């Protein structure tokens, strides 16, 4: 079943067009990767899906419902959750309080407690650091916190914007492994990355974004083998 569908989406910053006529969909249960260079429009796409930006044209459908005009804070309740670029954790809140904010829109407190356990299973480090302020954690820990917090809304669709950015290699491997794990537990994932190798290897399907338009699409394996993609994004000639 199609969980998310973008149809002919355009996004502008003032007069500047960041996304032009973009269409793609995400099926339930998939990991879909969106790769592209700096400034290609990946973050813009994510913020448009989560509702922080309004598209200037096109429509977005989520779980069969048109959400193009829906407010961001309501999309969370509908099942779209985002770990934003740059992690966006609350620096002055503790790990516990950050995670608590993740379940802000929820009323089913017993389910929330279960989800907290699930997050701690995925990221035992967060449990050890429960009283630490978000702002004093290392980059890798902050990324874990950002993903954990996003999971606290029990999303149908998890949006991850460059989770590997600025992290040490061992953290990057760990984060990607956990992304697959989250997907195995039943959450659909839309992953944005510059780290194309890992992102394509773990994706069911993937898209290449260049200056606001999708230029290549296929399964993760197909794109990994595509010569043009290889040359531009995988650092081999």
């Amino acid at each position, binding site marked *: 079943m199609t969980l998310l569908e973008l149809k002919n989406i355009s996004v502008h910053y003032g007069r500047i067009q960041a996304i032009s006529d973009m269409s793609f969909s995400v099926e339930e249960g998939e990991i879909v990767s969106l790769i592209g260079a700096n400034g290609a429009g990946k*973050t813009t796409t994510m*913020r448009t899906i*989560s*509702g*922080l930006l309004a598209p200037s044209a096109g429509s977005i459908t989520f779980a069969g419902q048109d959400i193009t005009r829906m*407010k*961001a*804070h*309501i999309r*969370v*309740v509908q099942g779209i*959750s*985002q770990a*934003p*670029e*740059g*992690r*966006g*954790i*609350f*620096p*002055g*809140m503790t790990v516990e*309080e950050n995670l*608590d*904010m*993740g379940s*802000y*829109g*929820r009323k089913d407190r017993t389910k929330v407690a279960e989800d907290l356990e699930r997050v701690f299973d995925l990221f035992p480090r967060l449990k050890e650091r429960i*009283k*630490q*302020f978000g*702002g*004093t*954690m*290392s*980059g890798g*820990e*902050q990324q874990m916190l950002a993903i954990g*917090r996003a999971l606290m*809304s029990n999303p149908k669709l998890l949006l991850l914007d460059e989770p590997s*950015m*600025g992290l040490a290699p061992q953290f990057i491997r760990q984060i990607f492994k956990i992304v697959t794990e989250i997907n195995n537990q039943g959450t659909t994932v839309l992953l944005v990355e510059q780290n194309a190798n890992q992102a394509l290897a773990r994706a069911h399907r993937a898209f290449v974004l260049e200056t606001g338009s999708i230029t290549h699409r296929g399964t993760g394996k197909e794109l990994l083998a595509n010569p043009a993609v290889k040359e531009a994004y995988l650092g081999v000639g």
Partner: protein
Amino acid sequence: MSTTDGPTLIPDDASAQEIADREARMRRRKGWFPGLSDKWNALPRQTQWLILIVVVVIAYLLPILNPPLITTEPGNNWQIALAQMSVYALVAVGLNVVVGYAGLLDLGYVAFFALGSYTAAMFTSPDSPYVHIPYLWTLPLAMAVAMFFGVVLGVPTLRLRGDYLAIVTLGFGEIVRILATIIPAMKGQVGFQNVGHPPGTDSSGQTIFQNSNGTPWYWLTLTIIILVLLAAGNLERSRVGRAWIAIREDEDAAEIMGVPTFKYKVWAFAIGASVGGLSGALFAGQVGFVNNQKFDIATSILFVAAVVMGGTGNKVGAILGGALVAYIPLRFTAIAEFKYLIFGAALVVIMIFRPGGLLPARQSLLAYGRLAYNKLKGALGDIPASGKVVLEPGKGADK
């Protein structure tokens, strides 16, 4: 305030990362700083109550104690000084909801204060041709009027971010003053004399709430501050309070956690405005005279200075900051003329050494002392030249 500008650490990711890591290690080694608020929370309930009661009793006794050295006399009447300090403290408590909790820079707060003053004056002063009502009724009325204008101003502007809000509120602060000058009904510089006061006479038949007697006004305002503090404390701990803090720390992140950020910003703005109106009405009653001269932008900036000095987001700090801003020029009359210069310099100094204010939201004096000590030790030892990142819990490093 943005999530789009990369990680939360400056200057560059690698060195910032290194500092964050070291900071995290340091915390792990030393355990948690036993902050004042932590210490306070660790105290048994009875002890907390005891301390609170002692503090409150001393606060009520201040006009009678008239403590030497601290007193503003002979330059200024101590009881009236206390009344003014308490009004400023209330102003700071209200503005703290806007600036401190929700992180909205309101540079026109004086406008709500003015609205409250004019509400009290126009409904009680014999100079006013309108309906007259008992003074105490003007207090809730002033709150309602200020809140109404808070919503009217907030709804269009709170969709904007950061700088725009500061500019619009700055403009609004001026508008109310200018309207008071040009609208005949508001009587410009002539103003309103004999603003009302609460009823009551003492045993000798004298009016209790006289303009020349600060004590009853101080007691009234102090009581209101305590009530507002109780309400603010409840708000702070509620879902709304958590939402405000999230908005202050990162508005986009708050929104994608499911916080209706716009609605809660309007709430913060309106609640803050109503407390501003309330303080204005108290001020008008105590002084007994309202005209267009008392509500300039400088006063507005002074209000913000009070909140920032006290420690943005900390209500006890706000009270101290507000009281201090009123107290210093009254106590040190020789330098009163230079008060803006002095507060400006004090702000710069505080922002350099205590970016969180005198009593920061989450940190305590004690914790600060240790942090400063560690920083100093670090500065002499192993902090790299580029590493001027300040990692203060409750403040973040991305501002």
